[in-house]
């Protein structure tokens, strides 16, 4: 597999062939030491996985490396020469390219224009012939096909990622940094990305792969550097480690891997809490819409909705929560037709929600933690006409909840917008589950959470289920759905393409169904 030559030579002797070296990198922000004395080495023709939980300092480190942040201390050297990176253009000149989690592409531009932006010695006149030729070259060499004339907004997540990688290659990058690259991909696309990365590695590229997913690390990395709380815990070769060892390094605990949950004893007369009956919604502005969707969730049951984002899951959530009025069909909550109910009425009926975009829909970023925590429970915490609130009691109640959940919130008076995404998600879970809802609609409940917090979130969801709540989990993470759900509904292009009981199906089957039988085109959002 591995090509002989300059790249392969360095593979097994990671110390001698160092191409990129970070020494003693320290970077602090007011009140936070994000990176502390970090040492890191990557060879030419090597894939280094940078593994760490949220807030471990991975992104800060990579932003230092890309010239976004200037480190407080430490040096970076490339190929033995120290470099100073004060801006992304310095990094680009030094041969460093980065694929960000949110793509650095301009949606209104064509693929060729986006590529042109990255070309280092671009002539005054945009030579589209030359760009096309480069694209064809790279496409055939690394399997990165892309239509030069397509507008980026028309492309799927996987295609946009290919354009990002192409951009780095044409810009002459020799060091590729990928920040959580699989988060935008369907399961089968991950293999394609890994094949591309291996080919690039064998061609002598230096690759840093940032992730918190142990499985990916074991699949793609040559060596693994683990970060915890801003420091390097250790660097190990892939062949000498296991997922369990890595997990232990990550969180410093044994037995952190969630395995399976004890099922609640199914009540003999399962009471249906949520019933969606033949609901259709017209798709507008490139949204998938819904077409004749039926599903139900019983009390004491977790129902899962599997699907690639943008295939009607958000519409389903909006219909259930009364934000979107279906063109056809009905929604029942405990046999009451709530199809035309207002959102407020539905929420008051005992429905909790973890929204898709927590910072926009779940919390008011400018309000404090305390204020956000009582936002949906005004009646409980502010009895009467709402002219009086016992803030001390509120704070105590919230502190108790936070403590139960093991949340590290510095101060309850901090605006929620200053917390990390993971902490916001945890606060939301805490708030919504704390309301003891009859039905909890949870979109991507563990998105952005690290392993320990994911475990806690899952425990909370399972506990809520065992206490009798009906829970609808929308997720792209099949591992999560398989671990949690009693029943699984698979969405593709706004329709239900499969309903399974847990244990009756495997991840490959679900993965193929949610992506339309393995054809990627099937789930690309239509440009309409």
């Amino acid at each position, binding site marked *: 597999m591995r090509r002989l030559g300059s790249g392969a030579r360095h593979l097994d002797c990671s110390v001698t062939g160092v191409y990129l070296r970070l020494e003693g990198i320290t970077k602090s922000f007011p009140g936070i030491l994000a990176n502390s004395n970090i040492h890191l080495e990557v060879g030419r023709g090597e894939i280094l996985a940078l593994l760490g939980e949220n807030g471990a300092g991975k992104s800060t480190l990579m932003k230092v490396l890309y010239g*976004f942040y200037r480190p407080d201390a430490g040096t970076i050297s490339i190929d033995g020469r120290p470099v100073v990176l004060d801006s992304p253009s310095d990094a680009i000149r030094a041969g460093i390219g*980065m694929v960000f989690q949110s793509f650095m592409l*301009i949606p209104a531009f064509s693929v060729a224009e986006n590529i042109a*932006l990255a070309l280092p010695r671009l002539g005054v*006149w945009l030579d589209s012939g030359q760009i096309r030729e480069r694209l064809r070259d790279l496409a055939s060499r690394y399997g990165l096909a892309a239509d030069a004339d397509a507008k980026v907004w028309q492309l799927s997540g996987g295609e946009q990622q290919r354009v990002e990688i192409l951009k780095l290659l044409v810009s002459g990058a020799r060091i590729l940094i990928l920040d959580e690259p699989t988060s935008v991909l369907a399961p089968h696309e991950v293999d394609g990305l890994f094949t591309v990365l291996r080919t690039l590695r064998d061609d002598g590229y230096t690759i840093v792969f940032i992730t918190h997913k142990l499985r990916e690390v074991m699949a793609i990395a040559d060596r693994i550097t683990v970060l915890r709380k801003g420091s390097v815990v250790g660097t190990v070769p892939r062949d000498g480690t296991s997922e369990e060892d890595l997990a232990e390094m990550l969180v410093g605990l044994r037995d952190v891997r969630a395995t399976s949950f004890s099922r609640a004893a199914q009540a003999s007369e399962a009471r249906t809490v949520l019933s969606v009956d033949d609901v259709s919604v017209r798709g507008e502005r490139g949204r998938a819409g819904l077409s004749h969707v039926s599903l139900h969730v019983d009390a004491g049951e977790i129902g899962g909705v599997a699907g690639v984002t943008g295939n009607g899951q958000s519409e389903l959530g909006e219909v259930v929560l009364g934000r979107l009025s279906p063109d056809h069909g009905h929604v029942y909550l405990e046999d009451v037709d709530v199809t035309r109910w207002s959102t407020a009425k539905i929420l008051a009926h005992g429905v909790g929600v973890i929204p898709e975009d927590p910072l926009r829909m779940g919390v008011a970023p400018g309000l404090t933690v305390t204020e956000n925590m009582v936002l949906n429970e005004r009646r409980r915490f502010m009895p009467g006409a709402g002219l009086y609130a016992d803030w001390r009691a509120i704070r105590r109640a919230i502190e108790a909840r936070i403590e139960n959940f093991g949340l590290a919130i510095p101060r309850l008076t901090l605006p929620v917008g200053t917390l990390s995404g993971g902490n916001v998600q945890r606060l939301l879970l805490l708030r919504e589950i704390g309301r003891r809802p009859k039905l909890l609609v949870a979109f991507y409940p563990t998105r952005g959470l690290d392993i320990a917090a994911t475990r806690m979130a899952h425990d909370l969801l399972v506990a809520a289920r065992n206490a009798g709540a009906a829970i609808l989990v929308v997720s792209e993470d099949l591992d999560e759905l398989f671990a949690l759900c009693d029943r699984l509904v698979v969405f593709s292009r706004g329709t239900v393409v499969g309903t399974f009981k847990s244990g009756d199906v495997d991840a490959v089957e679900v993965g193929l169904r949610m992506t339309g039988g393995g054809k990627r085109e099937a789930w690309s959002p239509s440009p309409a």
Partner: protein
Amino acid sequence: MLGLLYAVVGGGIRAGTPILYATLGEVIAERAGIVNLGVEGAILAGACAGFITTAHTQNPWLGIAAAALAGGAASLVHAFMVVTLRANQIASGLALMFLCLGVTSFVGRPYVAVKINAVPQLAIPGLSDIPVVGGLFFQHDALVYGAYLLAPLIWIVLTFTKWGLALRAVGERPDVAFAAGLSPAAIQYAAVVAGGILAGLAGAHLSLAYARSWVEGMSNGRGFIAVALVIFATWHPLRSVVGALVFGAVFALQLQIQARGVALSPYFLDMTPYLLTLAGLLLWGRTRRYAMPEALKSVFEGVT
């Protein structure tokens, strides 16, 4: 009737010239993500500076240069406010407009009713002798030809050169442009100042060729028409030409109607370009919103 048409077309080309300069300038600024409502002020600055310079030197070419300089300088203030100080673009633009209105009224006061050497007419040899067409299109002053040649030039630069690509990138996603090694701030400065220079030329045409006099507030809302025209033109330089010609024709028609003594209130006629603006916004504003540069109205936050 034919005479009216002739007058409206010829007059429309002339009256459309300052609008076209200002619109092209605003297209450049907005494609880089900056709305400059101060374009009205930059036109006044150009008209005033150009007129004063010409009045003293009797050289309209020096006047045009001074106008460009004054328009650029006025817009530099806006660039500094919104790019460097990250001030609100709308507030800064409006403040600039009123500042320029005040300053030019004050500075220009002694020059009201002063006579100057206007920008000379330049008949294109050969072409101007063609019957009808020659008189309509090829017997204008140099600034008219300049405006209509500038439109395709700007389109070419924006679409097919690396500078245009960089400018458009900044107007769409400044963070992406920054990550690509560009300097969004520098590009936005350049775009706003270039837009101001064009607004200054719009002013030069008004005071040195079209009206050949200085009157306070003589831009008379043309800057705001330009801002609206950018939207009809969906941020496209070539479509700006169409818009500028339509508005120019309305101005010319208004003059013709007045000149022919039609019994229509001059106040109503004065309103027509602005009614057209509103009508246009109503028709186009909704459906073509997608063409707007993504980063418009939000100045790059930078890195901390």
